[in-house]
Every structure is written in structure tokens, then in C-alpha cells.
């Protein structure tokens, strides 16, 4: 219990740091950067312009502290104002639209990749030196390939040359209307296939490599030898004795790697023009739509922190030592 509270406290601190960073970044930028933003939107009405200047900290805004308090108020009310490049649509509306696509695609693909990768890793670790090990260099290559490059290749081969899958967007807006119909769902899956494949292909390799190494170390532990000495079946030895213990460092690695997986997926969305928050974020950055940019940054950060916290909860559930270790501190 103590452990969970400590972790929660830590994530709250991290979230606060992110929020504060968001506040200071425009104010830490050289003047030319801020001017560039203002110059990009000359047609703004005065109230909107004032609001923009407030977020950027330019002009006369009062003391830094009062600006900060105002800013915090806005953040907690989830009031980020209107998006500049989509004026006057509020930022929150735009973000809300994109979140579902990203969550669906990235979330599901990551879970699949983790499960498959870990499973393969268990097999590769138990049978280290065997046939699966021959695939290791290929796995390393896949892991080192940038998401977006693999995306380009997949589009070229499966989308353009073979024409099996669509290469842009989340669904075909011309022929299908969103709704709970089978046709729409099918079209969505069609469009999601290549992006999902990109994420799965690249990250499976990473999880598999990591799990394999952890398994090899675990299989060498005394309690695995003891399990064999007890005459237990191979299956029980590998799963209940070796894999269950190897899963703990693997889960911790998952938490740490979440940030990277999300980052890679964001850039990949641009290649597919997939309307998730990655696509929105990058367009916002290109068009200097700072309110949108900053809102999405906060959203992504908080989401990753929340996911990390969930992983911590899972670890507490799976590893009995954590509860005691923290209690005896």
C-alpha cells in the first residue's frame, strides 16, 4: 500500500513538472521564436490575440507568479482556448477527436506486440541457442528500424505495389459514414492494418529480445534447478518457475519503454495521415499552433504517466516481494 502511494506521489510530481515545463517553455524561448508565432496569425481578433499572448507570456502580463496561477487554473479546467490553425474550434474538441484513433491503434497494437513478443521471448529463452536464436539479428534489425521507415516500406509494398490495403486516413470518408455498422468497422480495420502492423513488427522484436535475455538469466537460477530436481513437468518448470519470475523485470521494462513506443507511433501517424494525436501534434508544430501543441503534449505526457502507474500496480500484484520490501523501509 505504501509502495503504491509513493509511486502515485512520484507520478503526480512528474505531472506537475510537465505542466510547469509547458508554462515555461514559451517564456524561455528567444524573442524571435515568440514573434514567429504571433506573426503567423495576423488575422486574429483582439480577444484571441490577447489570449495567445497570455499563453506565450509576451507583452505585459503581470508578475510571473500571477501568470502561473492563471495558467494552472486553465489547465485544471481543461480550458486551452481555440486552436489557431483551426480557428475557432476549441483545442479540446480537436484533441478529443484524435485521441480515440490513437488510443485504438497504438493501445491495441502495443498490447498485442507485448504479448506476442513476451511469448516468443519465453520460448527463445528456454530454448536459447536453438532455432529461434537464429532470428535474433533480424529482430535487432527490426527493432532498430525507425517506425516511419518501416511504414514507408509497407506502404510501398502492400499499399501501392500490391494494392492490398489503403494507405491514408483512418477510414474512407467518401464511401463510409461513421457509425456502429459492420461495413464501417471493416473499413476502419482495413485502414488500421498497415499502421498496426508497423507498430507490432517493430516493437515485438524489442520485447522478444528483452524477454529472452531475462529468461536466460532466470533459467540459470537455483530455484529452477530445484524445480527440475523435484521432477516437475517441463511446462511447470518453464512457466511457473522461470517465466513468472522473468516477467517482473520484463514488466518494468514495459513501463520504461512505453514513452518510446508512443513516440515512435506518433511520427508514424504522419506517414499514414492517420488522424490521431500524433498527426495533430506534428501539424500543430509545423503551423505553430501553440495552444494545440501544448495541450497535446500535456495529454500524451499524462497518459504515459498513467500507463506507467498502471504497470506499477500490476507489478505489485504479481511480485510479493515488492509489498514487503516497501513495508520494511
Amino acid at each position, binding site marked *: 500500500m505504501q509502495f503504491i502511494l509513493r509511486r502515485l506521489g512520484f507520478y503526480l510530481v512528474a505531472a506537475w513538472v510537465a505542466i510547469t515545463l509547458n508554462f515555461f517553455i514559451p517564456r524561455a524561448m528567444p524573442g524571435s521564436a515568440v514573434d514567429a508565432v504571433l506573426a503567423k496569425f495576423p488575422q486574429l481578433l483582439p480577444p484571441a490575440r490577447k489570449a495567445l499572448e497570455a499563453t506565450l507570456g509576451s507583452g505585459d502580463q503581470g508578475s510571473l507568479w500571477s501568470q502561473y496561477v492563471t495558467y494552472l487554473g486553465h489547465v485544471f479546467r481543461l480550458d486551452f482556448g481555440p486552436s489557431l490553425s483551426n480557428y475557432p474550434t476549441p483545442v479540446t474538441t480537436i484533441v478529443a477527436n484524435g485521441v480515440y484513433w490513437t488510443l485504438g491503434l497504438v493501445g491495441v497494437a502495443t498490447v498485442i506486440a507485448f504479448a506476442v513478443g513476451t511469448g516468443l521471448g519465453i520460448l527463445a529463452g528456454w530454448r536459447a541457442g536453438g532455432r529461434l536464436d537464429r532470428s535474433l539479428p533480424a529482430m535487432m534489425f527490426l527493432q532498430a528500424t525507425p517506425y516511419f521507415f518501416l511504414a514507408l516500406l509497407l506502404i510501398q509494398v502492400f499499399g501501392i505495389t500490391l494494392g492490398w490495403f489503403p494507405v491514408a486516413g483512418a477510414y474512407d470518408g467518401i464511401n463510409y459514414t461513421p457509425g456502429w455498422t459492420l461495413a464501417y468497422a471493416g473499413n476502419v480495420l482495413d485502414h488500421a492494418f498497415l499502421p498496426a502492423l508497423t507498430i507490432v513488427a517493430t516493437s515485438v522484436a524489442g520485447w522478444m529480445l528483452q524477454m529472452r535475455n531475462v529468461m536466460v538469466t532466470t533459467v*540459470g*537460477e*537455483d*530455484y529452477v*534447478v*530445484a*524445480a*527440475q*530436481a*523435484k*521432477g*516437475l*513437468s517441463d511446462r*511447470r518448470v518453464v512457466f*511457473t*518457475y522461470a517465466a*513468472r*519470475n522473468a516477467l*517482473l523485470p520484463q514488466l518494468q521494462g514495459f513501463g520504461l519503454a512505453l514513452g518510446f513506443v508512443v513516440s515512435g507511433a506518433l511520427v508514424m501517424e504522419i506517414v499514414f495521415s492517420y488522424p490521431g494525436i500524433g498527426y495533430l501534434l506534428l501539424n500543430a508544430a509545423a503551423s505553430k499552433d501553440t495552444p494545440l501543441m501544448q495541450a497535446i503534449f500535456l495529454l500524451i505526457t499524462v497518459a504515459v504517466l498513467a500507463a506507467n502507474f498502471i504497470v506499477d500496480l500490476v507489478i505489485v500484484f*504479481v*511480485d*510479493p*516481494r515488492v509489498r*514487503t520490501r516497501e513495508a520494511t523501509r
Partner: protein
Amino acid sequence: MSPVLDIKDLSIAYRTPGGDVRAATHVNLTINKGEVVGLCGESGSGKSTLAYGACRLLRPPAVITSGSVLYSGARTGSVMPVDILRLPQRDLRAIRWRDIAIVFQSAMNALNPVLRVRDQIIDATEAHLRLPKDAAREKAARLLDLVGIPRERLRSYPHELSGGMRQRVMIAMAMAADPEVVIMDEPTTALDVVVQRDILAQIVELKETLGFSVLFITHDMSLLLELCDRIAVMYAGRIVELGAAADLKDAAAHPYTQGLLRSFPSLHGARRELAGIPGTPPDLRDPPQGCPFIPRCGFARPGCEQVDMSLLPVPGGRSPLHVTACPFVTAADNATAAPQQQAAAAEGALS
């Protein structure tokens, strides 16, 4: 009456890129029913390798290069022995724990950190006895009673127990399938002396009650002299002396055994100088000709290099079952040679 476990001519090696490391060479050892046999030797002498190898528990790159391990416990029905080394995997798994159980050295490492004690004990009973769930739990509880641990501890995880308790759990676990032979690999080395005493007393009591044989492996000769019926002394992968505990204590015949006996103090008797055994064990990748103890032996002579290390009865010994690998030294040389051995050993180490 045939012995329960008969290790015949067992040789074990580790296949490394630099050549085979001969961890055990032509070892012969028998364990009779209800007997406590001690296996003594310094680190690297091959004692653990021997025990685990006999059960085929060694990991690659270990290979068994010769010999057989004949098991003929009461459970096999016929009186004819079974060769463990040539069993198919399924039968090997059946014989493990049910007939030959092992108590590992470091209980903290040998217990699965994420399983409760109860589940780890039930593992063993389920694999071999096929009891229904309640019967299995009751048996686990009774096993803890046997070793003197409160029943509530069934629900504990290994890290929640003290060192002594963990070792007792290991012993209880070993009893789970009513084995005939229990191999104990330095079960008390990692514990403090008081706890050590308790555990050893427990082991003796269990042995009397349940009637299993014990192979007790340790480097602590003093312990074996008190505990065992027979003792085997290992050096550089070979057995150099074997005999009843009393025979070894009063009339040790091999120079190495004599050195071991001289290396620890006793609470009784006259004060004497503690002598060690200078030098280091040989490189097992390139075993020397003849007796491996030559560089450290105070009695070394030209004939030593032709010794074939077979175990022969000690000349003038009390019993023909007291055997030694050294054809030159007898118990009589023991008492007189003490001060000379030190000087000669120093010389031997330099040459």
C-alpha cells in the same frame, strides 16, 4: 542386501572450449538403507558435481562420460536395480524427488520467490503422489509440523521467513514424497552455529522416524565425524578415502584426510598446533599423472606418479571396508609424521 544407491565408476566432465574439465573421475560410492554417508572435500573437489550429476541435474556444458548410478529402493518392486543414467526422461522425472530428494545449499535461492511455501510443497506431492487438493494441503501442513514450523507459515512467501526457517522448509519439501535417499548439499553452511545445531538435530530425528538414507555433502569434516556412519573424502574429483566414521577419526589413512583432520580444533584433548594444507588444488583441465595430491603431500615419493587411485583396504586397518587410494601411507604414520609433514609439505609446495 544391495545398497540403495550404488554409484559405479562415475566420471563427469565440463566441456569447455579449452578442453574437458574433469570434475569427477571414476568415482565409486555406495549408500545403504538407513545409512548416513558423508562426502567431504574442499571447494572444487567435485562433491556437489558428483551428487547433482548422479541425478543428471547438471546443466550444459556438463557431460557424464562414464559409469552408472544404480538405484534399488524399496519402491521399485523388484529387488533388481535401475540405472538412473539410462532412464528415459519420463521415468527420470518420476524417480526424482520420489526416490531421491535434494536439500539445496542456499534456501533463499532454491525457493521460488513468487510462490507461497504451501504451493511449493504441494508441487512436489502433486507431481508424484497425485493426492486430491485437501489431502495435499494436509500433508504439507504435517510436513511443516515435522520440521517444527508453525502451520500459518504455509501461506508465507520465502522472503518472509528467516534463514533457519527457510532451510527447514527445504527439508520439509524434501520429505514431501517420502524419499528413500536424501542428498543434502551443505544444508547448514550458510547458517549461524546455533541454528546449525538445531537443523542437524532435526535431520537426525527425521531420519530415525522416516528411515531414509542421507548423503551429506560438506567441507566441514568435524560435522561429518559426529553425524555420519561412513565418510568419503574427495580430492580433485576422486575419492581418496572411504570408511566408517570411527575408522577415519582414529586411523585416517590418506595424507589428505590426515591434513583435514589436523585443520580444525577439537574441544577436548591436548592443545596442538593447527596445521593447514598448504598449496592449491590442481587444474582439472589437465590432470597430473598419478595421484593429484602429490604437490601438497608430505609423504610424496617417486612411486606416487604411478598410483592408479583405485581404492584398496588399508593395510593393518580395523576393517576391510576402510579403503584408501594411497598405497604408501598407513594410520601408523599418522601420529609420528605430523611435524615432519609440515616441513615436507612446504618443500613439496616449492618444488
